[in-house]
């Protein structure tokens, strides 16, 4: 027993010494997971001006599809990731072109309520498709090892999440800034009527953006599957976090979504050490402060 205690103490001392690096790493990995969801939300809002309440529900579908492909259908996580992105993207297209488009001429709030109604429908459809209870997903074998970094050890999967979110961020930025498609999207988000006059097929851009935004959150859900239990309620939890992120970062700003996600990740990681329950109310406090002192968000006002 005495030996055991010594080993314990040693590991705890070791652990305490490395806290900052670890906290930062964990915070970034939480932020990375949230980033894709917030990015999709921000993209759709930036271009269409619609705050998509069903975004969390779409995230949940992505998680379930990722889980299904990994554990039952094909046994491959990466195909699951792809399938989640495609399927959720297509569901987004149905919601946009089948429903929201019908009421673009109505006040924005009607569109918000419409997406709110979809939460109910999707919740039930997920229950009917995958049943009740929690589902688990194994970590993909390729990433099922630990990485030693700066004297601490991290799971490769979390390292992958951080790298992936950085890659997505850079890719999207390049697409928007350097390609024709990117120019069209930016033009449409700046002035829809003018773009239409200049020959942009606005409905197609909208549908495309809804596809990409939904696909991103679907992939976000599938990425979350290996590190958490998946239940038919995870959408409601994530949507509020995504709102907070895009508000902190600036609605419609991609850099903002990235910064916001990382800030929330770090608050999650450090908050609980600073004060019990800090992870719960600190995000709201930060959002409040941002809204009071810089209402358009840290990176708001054009992106």
């Amino acid at each position, binding site marked *: 027993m005495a030996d055991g205690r010594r080993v314990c103490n040693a590991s705890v001392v070791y652990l305490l010494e490395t806290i900052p690096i670890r906290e930062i790493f964990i915070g970034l990995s939480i932020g990375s997971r949230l980033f894709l969801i917030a990015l999709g939300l921000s993209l759709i809002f930036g271009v269409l001006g619609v705050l998509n309440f069903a975004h969390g529900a779409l995230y949940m579908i992505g998680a379930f599809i990722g889980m299904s492909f990994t554990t039952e259908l094909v046994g491959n996580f990466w195909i699951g990731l792809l399938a989640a992105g495609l399927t959720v993207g297509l569901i987004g297209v149905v919601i946009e*072109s089948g429903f929201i488009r019908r009421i673009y001429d109505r006040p924005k709030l009607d569109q918000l*309520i*419409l997406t*709110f109604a979809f939460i109910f429908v999707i919740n039930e459809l997920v229950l009917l498709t995958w049943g009740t209870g929690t589902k688990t997903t194994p970590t993909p074998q390729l990433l099922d090892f630990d990485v030693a970094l700066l004297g601490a050890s991290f799971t490769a999967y979390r390292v992958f999440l951080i790298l992936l979110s950085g890659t997505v961020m850079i890719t999207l930025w390049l697409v928007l800034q350097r390609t024709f498609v990117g120019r069209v999207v930016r033009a449409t988000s700046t002035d829809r009527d003018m773009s239409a006059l200049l020959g942009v097929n606005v409905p197609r851009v909208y549908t495309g953006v809804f596809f990409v935004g939904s696909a991103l959150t679907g992939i976000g859900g599938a990425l979350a599957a290996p590190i958490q239990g998946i239940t038919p309620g995870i959408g409601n939890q994530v949507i509020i976090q995504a709102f907070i992120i895009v508000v902190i970062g600036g609605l419609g700003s991609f850099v903002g979504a990235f910064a916001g996600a990382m800030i929330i990740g770090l608050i999650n990681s450090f908050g609980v050490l600073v004060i019990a*329950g800090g992870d719960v109310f600190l995000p709201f406090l930060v*959002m409040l402060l941002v809204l009071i002192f810089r209402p358009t968000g840290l990176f708001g006002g054009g992106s």
Partner: protein
Amino acid sequence: MSLRERTAESVASARTGWTKARILAITLAFLLVAPFVLPEFQVFVLIEVFVFVLFATSFNLLYGYTGLLSFGHALFYAGGAYGLAIFLRDIGPLLPAALGGVSPLVVFGFAGVAGVIAITLVAIPVGYLSVQLEEIYFAMITLAFGMGLYTVVLQNPGGLTNGSEGILVLLGSADVLGLTVQLGSRTTYYYFVLAVFLLSMYALWRIVVSPFGAVCKSIRENPERAEAIGINVTRHQWLTFILSAMFTAIAGILMAPHHNIVSPEMAYWETSAVAVVSAVLGGPSVFLGPAFGAIAFRYLRWIITRVPALEAHWELAFGILLIVVILFLNKGVSGGVYSFAGWLRRVELAYNSDGLEGVRNYIRESVQGKLSAMVSTTTRYLKGTRIEGN
């Protein structure tokens, strides 16, 4: 509604005798006798409906009349209810028994007033900070304030809110003029809520039709112009915010004894969404719009509970119903109700001039017209429409 339609409507209502005053009188008469003609549970639901209608209408004072969408009205709804519950629990027993038999009634009255005052004090700074922002940013800051209360209530600071278990709110009985009145009994409480509800609605209506309300509407239509003609827009929105919060608090206060409890979920964002959905569903541009929305919202859910097959999948049923209403009633439920009422009036006119034959002709014509309109709408819908300006 265009001016021409409106004129035609009022001419029609004058000719048939179905004036607004008459409809209002009939509704009031029904509400007065409701506890004696409705089944017990319907009385229970009706009290909830009063509360939701008041909640949605108060919310709409801000949204419909100044264009500010609050996603945090649960703060005031739950806040008022918690104010009442905490007062009843902690201060009620300290009040002197010298009041005699009426003391429970007096304590309840004090507690309600305390709840409203507390919320007013909260709404002053919260409103001040919030109205500095516009549109979606306003929605988000109010969401943050609302969820702030939710997390505080859940953390149970100093044992004040009793955390997730909430606080029981049970009304005792009072002796009034020698009669023992069970304050919490359904019939008694029904009339109490009805009275407060009608007074509050009347007050809200007076606010809306007053010069103050006119200024509100001018802000909603064109804030820049309002500012230009000398209205302090922010200050005016701030005042409206406080008024809206006070009436919302009354709604929360009325609900607490009805459900016997206050609980953290009253402060959750989904509670705020009830008011938002009701207002949008009903049609925020008319005073009674949110009322129709709240009524539809509550009874839709109730109808689903009556059908076990739907109840087993109520989320699906409810979501689809909501989608259908939003897509097909573009002026909200109230728009649908008003146009149906107009149709009934025209049926009556047809009867007055041509008897049953006239009614039959009119119905045939209008149904055929509606059907062909529906067919063309559906065709357009299936083909996909061009996006029009918003």
